[in-house]
């Protein structure tokens, strides 16, 4: 995969500028149809989800007060994991997008909501709503692509450092909320600046994150375990809360990887968005996202980010309506000869991880490796990892040649 602008056969080459603007008009009409019909039922939906989530969290934590008993531990941990997933995905993420601002309920509003997450809501809104949703999949602008630590495209030059990226990605998945917090702070960029030259704004943001992390960790790893002391359940409750956080992190990381990382999702050149029109922005969102197919419960647990395409087209539409407009959006893709990328959760997770592994290796390495040539391929990889840039270039040229020949033979 390479950016859409560099591909030999661009998937949007057949669209005229008029087509692209017409796509914008038709998508605006879909958006308007939801605005015109939203009302009491939608409001009742989000209030119900919040009520169910809070009841589930309360119930699970109550059960965990006796978590020394294994069945209580299992039930409580499972319930708390689901509650934390709902809180982050269907509730927090979507409220912070302003999807429910229209209700004018000060308790359910993008400017007042705070969530059970290491990163403070306001910081996340900046990096997610403003940067990621505006510059979706633009290399160099959308840091969600690999979070600045991964090789996400064949066009990025390979370096031995990237061999470890499947491991980084897994560790990032387990502690995703802290990864997000570091990412929202642009920690990497700021840490390169000498300590005394860091901006006061950055320092204030770090303090806010640390305060948030302290509060969340105190709740999960001190207060609730301490409340379980009467049954001798301090450690089991601590373990349960830790497990629920990791489960939530792994789940949300998987869902988010499926949104922009599986095969078929396009990336874009930085220069291509200069003077981008409304229609062109829509087309970039259409091709830069992928859906997950599945049951109603699965959609709910992903916070309806399984409708990633619809969410990226209309990030401020309330999530409970994405399912209803998805067939209209898909029909629009077909009408204009575009690919609506979708697949089951296992398929998309596999596809995304496969890409992580493939890109951790030099271009063409995975494709040209068979059982038979494995020893020589490993030797080549070893040489590339140990050698300097010159050795890497030469080896890469050979890999490219083999890959080309293989393509021709196929």
């Amino acid at each position, binding site marked *: 995969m390479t950016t859409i602008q560099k591909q030999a056969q661009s998937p949007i080459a057949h669209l005229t500028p008029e087509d692209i603007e017409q796509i914008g008009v038709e998508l*605006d009409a879909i958006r*308007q149809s939801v*605005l015109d019909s*939203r*009302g*009491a*039922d*939608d*409001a*009742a939906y989000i209030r119900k989800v919040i*009520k169910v989530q*809070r*009841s589930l969290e*309360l119930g699970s934590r109550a059960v965990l007060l006796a978590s020394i008993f294994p069945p209580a531990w299992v039930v409580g941990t499972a319930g708390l994991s689901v509650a934390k997933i709902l809180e982050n995905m269907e509730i927090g993420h979507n409220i*912070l*997008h*302003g999807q429910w*601002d*229209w*209700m*004018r*309920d*000060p*308790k359910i*509003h*993008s*400017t007042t909501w*705070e*969530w*059970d997450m290491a990163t403070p809501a306001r910081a996340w*809104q*900046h990096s997610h*709503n*403003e940067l990621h*949703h*505006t510059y979706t999949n633009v290399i160099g602008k959308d840091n969600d692509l690999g979070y600045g630590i991964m090789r996400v495209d064949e066009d990025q030059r390979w370096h031995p450092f990237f061999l470890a990226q499947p491991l980084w990605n897994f560790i990032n998945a387990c502690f995703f909320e802290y990864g997000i917090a570091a990412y929202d702070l642009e920690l990497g960029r700021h840490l390169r600046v000498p300590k005394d030259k860091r901006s006061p704004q950055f320092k204030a943001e770090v303090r806010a994150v640390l305060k*948030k992390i302290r*509060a*969340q960790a*105190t*709740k999960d790893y001190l*207060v*609730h375990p301490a*409340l379980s002391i009467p049954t001798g359940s301090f450690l089991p409750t601590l373990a349960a809360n830790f497990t629920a956080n990791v489960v939530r992190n792994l789940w949300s990381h998987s869902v988010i990887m499926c949104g922009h990382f599986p095969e078929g999702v396009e990336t874009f050149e930085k220069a291509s968005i200069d003077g981008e029109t409304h229609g062109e*922005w829509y087309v970039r969102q259409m091709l830069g996202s992928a859906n997950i197919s599945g049951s109603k419960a699965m959609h709910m647990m992903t916070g309806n980010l399984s409708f990633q395409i619809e969410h990226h087209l209309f*990030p*401020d539409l309330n999530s409970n309506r994405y399912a209803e407009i998805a067939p209209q959006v898909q029909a629009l893709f077909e009408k204009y000869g575009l690919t609506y990328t979708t697949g089951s959760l296992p398929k998309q997770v596999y596809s995304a991880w496969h890409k992580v592994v493939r890109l951790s290796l030099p271009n063409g390495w995975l494709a040209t490796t068979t059982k038979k040539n494995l020893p020589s391929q490993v030797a080549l990889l070893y040489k590339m990892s140990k050698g300097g840039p010159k050795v890497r270039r030469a080896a890469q040229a050979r890999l490219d040649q083999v890959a080309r020949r293989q393509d021709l033979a196929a």
Partner: protein
Amino acid sequence: MTGSSATSLRSRLTRLAESATTPLVPADFLDLFAPLRAGADLRGRIEQITAETPDAATIVIRPGADWAGHKPGQYLRIGIDVNGVRQWRAYSLTHGPRADGRISITVKAVPDGMVSNHLVHEAVPGTLVHLEQAAGEFVLNSDHDKLLFVTAGSGITPVIGMLRNLFPSTDTGVLKLDRSKDLDIVVVHVAPSEPDSIFLRDLQALDASGAIRLVARYDDVHGVLKVDDLTDLVADLADRRTLACGPAGLLDALGAHHEAAGLELVTEQFRTARVEPGEGGSISFANGTTVELDGATSILDGAEEAGVLMPSGCRMGICMGCVLPMTQGSVRDLRNGQITTAVPGETGPGATGAVKIQTCISAAAGACDLDH
């Protein structure tokens, strides 16, 4: 235990509870089970809705534990979700304080009145509503014996509240209490026609018992009331203290009349005058800056152009980074032309009516005030 150590124990327990629920607060969980408990945001539950006329109903509400009570004639601000959107309106409390602790409002559905129509025709018992404590200076002072009430349409509601408190109506007729025996009250009540007149039976019963003198004027029978006619309808007008409640037109005319005659007048108006949304307008900021904008420029762009420091983000309506509270006025969504209007006291809690708007996709549709 001393008072201060009790307080500090209490605040420590509160902090402990908060540390167990963060980033939520314990109240968020308590609200699931006991939204009307002491210490909660003031709310109420609708218990009963009784039709008074085809387009008016009395709504009985059980207020939360922190309801501080009210005086007859005072009004109440109520927040209710209509089509999923929170709206705030003020309604007079119909009764004086009741033994069962319930409160009631009587609402007349006005044409295009989103909230009044919802309350009269759609609301159901069991609905949770948001309340503010009773307020309003439109109450009786005990130093006046001779009173004139001038009411029009639903403007009768605060007056009914006062009269019911003065002359409780029982199965055996209207009670005359000691505290009310010296009162001499005339009620001039105006309505479009007799069937449209809410509380007419109550007024007639009070009139029949001699508690008040009722002068009912129906537009379809007597023609529209002119304030100069009052001198004919109420001979001793000059001796009376006038309390009036009704639409702006009537109150303005009455104000001019009484001022010219040197008479005392207390008024209460419910519906604020509305401005029709237009194209463009001046945006006023909290610090006093005013910016003139046309109807095609976003408030964000226009204000920045004029040198106002504005919060901003994606500049295309998706990130909510530019949201600011509009306390008054109308804006038009540049994407689809949708109008959003802020009316003090109606579109938000408190007196401001603030509605949060996205300045990057909103253009002025008339004069607006931004709290920024």
